[in-house]
């Protein structure tokens, strides 16, 4: 055979494989508002950068007439490309081929590209759109999942791992995304659950739609499994690109520096945003924007546990991770969900050399039987653990309330914040004046001729004496009391002198965080 013939044979083979599950299946996929797997990769990566591998992989199923079936690429597309100009490894499950079901060779393709990402020290992006395990392949499909989970765990904290849920992701399949750093979902397209509506109906007799059980909104707002919610696949890809602009490519590198820009203080002015009365709410995201480059703030898990705000921004061009109590929601308390959300983010930043900025304004932990019984002790402990463990530069700004355990937990100097700044409005105390006065002056109030009058007087006394940053500053627990408008400059200075920070930690295999 001549070279031309050989080449045309290759081209024919490629054409067949590139058709995936065929035109009918492709039309069906598109009718549901979804792109095909290859279209998704091309839309996400830099133009013309995608190079596909293992196009000719075939499935290894022998039972149930599987040996007669041709499944192009075995239902998953893998390869390398660039994102924002930097290399990434990527895979996308192809729902048009046997419902994107995961068989042994399908899993082998995924683990091969994951191994590749680990060797090259570049991010791995997984686009999930699969009906689940390929039942016909039995234990081999389970083995496939196990091999993926193991690699997710090994890669955790070494290279960024991004999961994009663009279809069903059910049963065992959900645990790969759950082990990765960031999970992206799209409204009406993403569906994640361990047991689906049919099983629930059979066992419980309860009817629920896939959307209500594990749709994008549920995963973003209720469970906290998802980090980013988008209305469309295109919006989702934009979010991924933005995320990737903030994070370093592996745990040895630092995030790329951008040109520095001042905040847009005309729109975000701390003096007008910030109410000094500790009982008045405000949106802490506006305070963040008043501090950051170009007033940009890329929020993570915006819908879940909104009483704490986490996300990335830049100070003088360099990425920092913000953790901030949100007085606008549940008064900014720490509770089971917000502790969980903050702790994981702190550990992410620490693993990937991203300095942490903590804005403190919280009345403490959320009181309630449900919180106690849901384990607020062990969940709350995660925040203490994560902050204490983190060795990246840690800067804390106490803006208003920092009461009790909340004060300690929010990266106090005791957990080794490198810099603790407080605004003159800060109130650093065991609890709010009202609660403290009621306890300390219980007898005086009870025995007074006019208890209400006495209570008011004692609250005022306590407030005057303790509801300020100067008691903590007198002990050196606050490094500097600063005007709010100085915050950005102080943070930038602190960052610049911390760039070579090295902190030794005790030699150990790993700690045992309360998770």
């Amino acid at each position, binding site marked *: 055979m001549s070279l031309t013939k050989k080449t045309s044979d290759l081209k024919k083979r490629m054409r067949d494989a590139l058709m995936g599950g065929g035109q009918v299946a492709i039309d069906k996929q598109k009718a549901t508002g979804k792109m095909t797997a290859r279209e998704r990769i091309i839309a996400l990566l830099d133009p013309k950068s995608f190079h596909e591998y293992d196009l000719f992989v075939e499935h290894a199923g022998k039972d149930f007439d599987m040996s007669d079936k041709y499944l192009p690429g075995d239902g998953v597309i893998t390869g390398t490309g660039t994102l924002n100009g930097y290399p990434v490894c990527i895979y996308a499950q192809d729902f048009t081929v046997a419902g994107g079901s995961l068989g042994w060779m399908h899993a082998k393709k995924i683990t091969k590209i994951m191994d590749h990402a680990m060797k090259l020290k570049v991010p791995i992006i997984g686009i999930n759109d699969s009906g689940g395990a390929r039942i016909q392949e039995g234990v081999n499909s389970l083995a496939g999942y196990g091999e993926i989970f193991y690699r997710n765990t090994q890669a955790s904290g070494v290279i960024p791992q991004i999961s994009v849920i663009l279809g069903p992701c059910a049963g065992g399949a959900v645990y790969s995304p759950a082990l990765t750093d960031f999970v992206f979902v799209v*409204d009406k397209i993403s569906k994640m659950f361990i047991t689906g509506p049919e099983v629930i109906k059979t*066992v*419980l*007799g*309860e009817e629920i739609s896939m959307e209500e059980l594990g749709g994008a*909104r549920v995963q973003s*707002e*209720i469970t906290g499994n998802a980090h*980013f*919610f*988008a*209305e469309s696949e295109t919006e989702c890809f934009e*979010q991924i690109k933005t995320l990737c602009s903030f994070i370093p490519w592996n745990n040895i590198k630092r995030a790329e520096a951008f040109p520095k820009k001042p905040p847009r203080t005309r729109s975000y002015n701390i003096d007008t945003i910030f109410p000094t009365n*500790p*009982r*008045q*709410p405000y949106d802490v995201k506006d305070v963040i924007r008043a501090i950051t480059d170009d007033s940009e703030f890329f*929020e993570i898990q*915006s*819908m879940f*546990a*909104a*009483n704490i705000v986490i996300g990335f921004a830049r100070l003088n061009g360099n990425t920092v991770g913000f953790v901030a109590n949100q*007085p*606008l*929601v*549940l*008064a*900014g*308390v720490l509770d089971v*969900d917000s502790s969980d959300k903050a702790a994981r983010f702190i550990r992410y930043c620490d693993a990937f050399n991203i300095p942490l900025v903590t804005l403190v304004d919280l*009345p*403490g932990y*959320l*009181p*309630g*039987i*449900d919180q106690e*019984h849901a384990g607020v002790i062990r969940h709350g402990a995660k925040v203490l653990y994560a902050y204490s463990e983190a060795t990246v530069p840690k800067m804390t700004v106490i803006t208003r309330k920092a*009461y*009790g355990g909340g004060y300690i937990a929010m990266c106090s100097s005791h957990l080794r914040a490198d810099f603790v700044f407080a605004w003159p409005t800060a109130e650093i105390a065991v*609890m*709010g*004046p*009202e*609660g*403290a006065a*009621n306890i300390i002056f219980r007898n005086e109030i009870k025995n007074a001729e006019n208890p209400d009058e006495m209570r008011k007087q004692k609250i005022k006394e306590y407030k005057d004496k303790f509801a300020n940053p100067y008691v903590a500053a007198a002990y050196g627990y606050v490094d500097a009391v600063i005007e709010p408008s100085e915050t950005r400059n102080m943070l930038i200075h602190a960052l610049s002198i911390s760039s070579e920070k090295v902190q030794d930690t005790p030699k150990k295999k790993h700690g045992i965080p309360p998770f």
Partner: protein
Amino acid sequence: MSGSHESHEIRTIVIDNVKYKTRLTRKFLDRKPYSPDVPGHVYSFIPGTILGVSAKEGDKVKKGTILLELEAMKMANNIIAPIDGTIKKINVKKGDLVPKNCLLVEIE
């Protein structure tokens, strides 16, 4: 990242005697009120199907007496009396599908 179901209404939350003005989350508003344990109340510990009920209302039972059989996850579980007493009420019958934490039997 729009479209949260969270209410934008400003409400009040009390922490250590201080009233804070703030929004409440859907999850916070949906939280279940606590109900203390009643010693003779028998709840399903797992969702499943009632295979059979061996006790009757009015029966005097000893702690450990099998009251009914609950099948869940392909396992038949004996549900037993937690205390000595008289069965006041049985809320399920053979074939019923029950969720988790369903009050099955009340013993006095």
